[in-house]
């Protein structure tokens, strides 16, 4: 089978693509959604970020320095942590940022370690061409998992306040008393992943597979990579969500196993 090289995308082509954002802005103006400015700023910001990252990646790829690669991975975790907790204003920000950061780091690192060393056999182990895009996908999903878990857990703890206290009063441990809230929070975070597993290849052709095919890669190879990506995202989301739920839950109770008041 003849594999063709991807068609080059020029700057003018990118400007033409940006016109599509104008459609969304027009809809926002027409329906008075108030999203026009956010969309415009978001589009410009995304372009600048992507251009910058392109140059940074070029530099890292050229240097092939393991410490630089690790520093970049940590930077990704840091950025994901800030993004994950930005919209959780109603929660107490400081411990939640730490919780989400560590959870994303743990979930993403375990998954990357497994995929890099056991599945893909990346050599050298820090090869940025593999590690950075794979870690990027993992961290992105772990970030969403962390946000969804924290947000849902807070709502559940609030809604189930009376149930939890009734169980505490019977002598239940905080873990037992809040187990249903934790279950709901982890399930809520897993739903997008479960949905993605159900429709991948039918409703949606995911980014990595599409990218490989557009770049002229073998579609069967692209499919195998995509399947691996789906599996690793599932694991990363599950590990991160569980870490967030189990750790964040503890902050709702005092050392004397009393349910702390919620705002």
């Amino acid at each position: 089978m003849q594999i063709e090289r991807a068609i080059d995308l020029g700057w003018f082509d990118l400007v033409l693509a940006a016109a599509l954002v104008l459609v969304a802005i027009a809809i926002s103006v027409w329906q008075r959604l108030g999203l026009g400015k956010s969309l415009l700023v978001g589009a410009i910001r995304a372009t600048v970020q992507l251009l910058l990252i392109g140059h940074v990646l070029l530099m890292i790829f050229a240097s092939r320095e393991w410490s630089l690669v690790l520093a970049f991975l940590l930077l990704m975790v840091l950025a994901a942590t800030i993004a994950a907790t930005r919209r959780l204003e109603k929660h107490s920000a400081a411990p939640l940022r730490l919780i989400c950061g560590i959870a994303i780091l743990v979930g993403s690192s375990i998954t990357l370690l497994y995929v890099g060393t056991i599945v893909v056999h990346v050599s050298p182990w820090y090869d940025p061409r593999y590690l950075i895009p794979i870690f990027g996908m993992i961290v992105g999903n772990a970030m969403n998992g962390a946000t969804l878990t924290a947000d849902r857990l807070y709502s559940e703890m609030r809604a189930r306040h009376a149930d939890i206290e009734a169980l505490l009063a019977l002598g239940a441990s905080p873990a037992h008393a809040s187990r249903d809230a934790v279950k709901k929070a982890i399930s809520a975070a897993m739903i997008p992943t479960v949905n993605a597993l159900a429709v991948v290849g039918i409703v949606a052709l995911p980014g990595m597979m599409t990218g490989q095919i557009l770049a002229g890669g073998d579609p069967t190879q692209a499919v195998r990579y995509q399947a691996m990506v789906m599996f690793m995202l599932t694991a990363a989301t599950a590990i991160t969500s569980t870490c967030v739920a189990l750790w964040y839950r503890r902050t709702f109770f005092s050392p004397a196993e009393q349910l702390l008041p919620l705002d």
Partner: protein
Amino acid sequence: MNQAISLSSPAFELAQVNHVRVGRTVLRDISLTIPKGRTTSLIGPSGSGKTSLLRLLNRLESPVSGSIRYAGRVLEEYPIRELRRRVAFAFQTPAMLPGTVLDNLLEACRCFSYKVTAEDNARAMHALQLAELPADYLSRPADRLSGGEKQRVALARALMTEPDVLLLDEPTSALDPDTSARLVATLSRLTQRGLTIVMATHRLEEARLMGGYVAVLQAGCVVDYRSSGALETAIVVTL
């Protein structure tokens, strides 16, 4: 004001207890001795601190100052879960957990063990009976019960741990007079078997029927404490 009554065997001893909830002082300088194996009724208007006092005894909350002793030991010295099983609490607006009434009762056992035994089932039946509910209620969905039925299920659930002390927050507030009278009679019988009851109530008559002692609370302070038989009309007027 020291409200210590001379008792040979107290269940709780509170000394200069102050408590603040959400920035508001709800209990002020409470010194009170609650006898073992008797009923102590906490009487007072809404917001007088009755529920807050009950919550301190089960350690759902901790006072900002003062000390509470249970059976001679400072409350903080007890392993918290053991204390809560010995000092059970039935809320005024009880939360029903998902499932049937039986599920709700057995939850008290599941807090400690995943295995529910035949003995637990028998205990559930007995607890339901004590709470003045017929046996066929065990299979009913708990969330479809009336307010009064939920209160009684919560009482039965609290009895499932076979506690030494039962804290009751307005246990008859949603009951009709007949059921209320039957429940009060049952509770009185339980104290005769050695159970200590601390009960928050609006109803003076209920406190009289339960016997034991009555502590009158106003604005977070105990303003009177005496045996229920010695209740005077003057106190009634102040409520």
